[in-house]
């Protein structure tokens, strides 16, 4: 519990001012948010592994929602909202347009990362010794689509 009130630590982390980072290495483990997080993990008998798994689970769920619409349709919606924002001059419409554009950018970066990963896996498979390569007469194993 927070020393100043009865707010659970997890809620105080959510409600407190956000610290934006430019890279993961910039994270300050001695920052009160991160110290509170360590205390919460210890208190609840959790582990950093669980924390990571839960975060990855949430990311995958969110990406499932985003992936239901093709990238070109996202792009077209962002383009139309951008036009609407310019026509109306309203900050709220500009926010909608910005939110969709930020999402397009996110999806594009995920695609690029996925392509890099696939290319890397193909190169690894090609470089592997023959005895390590999968047998082609076996049934194909269903691929996982986990993004993270």
């Amino acid at each position, binding site marked *: 519990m927070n020393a100043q009130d009865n707010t659970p630590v997890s809620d105080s982390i959510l409600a407190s001012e956000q610290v934006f980072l430019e890279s993961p290495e910039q994270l300050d483990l001695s920052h009160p948010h991160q110290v509170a997080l360590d205390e919460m993990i210890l208190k609840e008998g959790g582990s950093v592994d669980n924390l*990571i798994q839960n975060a990855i689970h949430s990311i995958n769920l969110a990406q499932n929602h985003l992936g239901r619409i093709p990238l070109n*349709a996202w792009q*077209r919606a962002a383009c139309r909202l951008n036009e609407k924002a310019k026509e109306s001059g309203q900050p709220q419409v500009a926010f909608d347009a910005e939110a969709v554009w930020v*999402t397009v950018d996110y999806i594009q970066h995920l695609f690029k990362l996925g392509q890099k990963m696939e290319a890397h896996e193909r190169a690894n498979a090609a470089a592997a010794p023959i005895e390590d390569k999968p047998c082609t007469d076996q049934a194909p194993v269903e691929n996982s689509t986990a993004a993270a």
Partner: protein
Amino acid sequence: MKTPYITSASALDLNSEDQLDITKGLRSCLDLGFSEDFALNALISEVAGNLTDAIKILGRVPLGILQRAAYELDQRANASGLAKDKYAAQATWLTVEYMQKNLQAAEDTVLSLQPEGEEATTETPATSAAA
């Protein structure tokens, strides 16, 4: 068909092969008697629904926790040198950046919507959508 990557919403080429494909979908709406604006609004509604659902899910994870997960995965990737660890760390970091941009855009919008002299509230469109 390869969707071209664009660097801003205004950079979209409506004559690209990909967008002509979307136009065909819109045309089927027009054939049913709907206007182009109606068809585009329907597309925007669908996008808004999926975007809101995704933000709600990600919004349940505090930013500090997402950042910590990206940090820990980055540390592991550096230690192991394995490509799969590197990609997992990068995918998580992209999500951190995405949420940071959303939060920043929400904060900027709240500030721009406020009458002069009023103090900023902690409620932003992104956090209220995530609640």
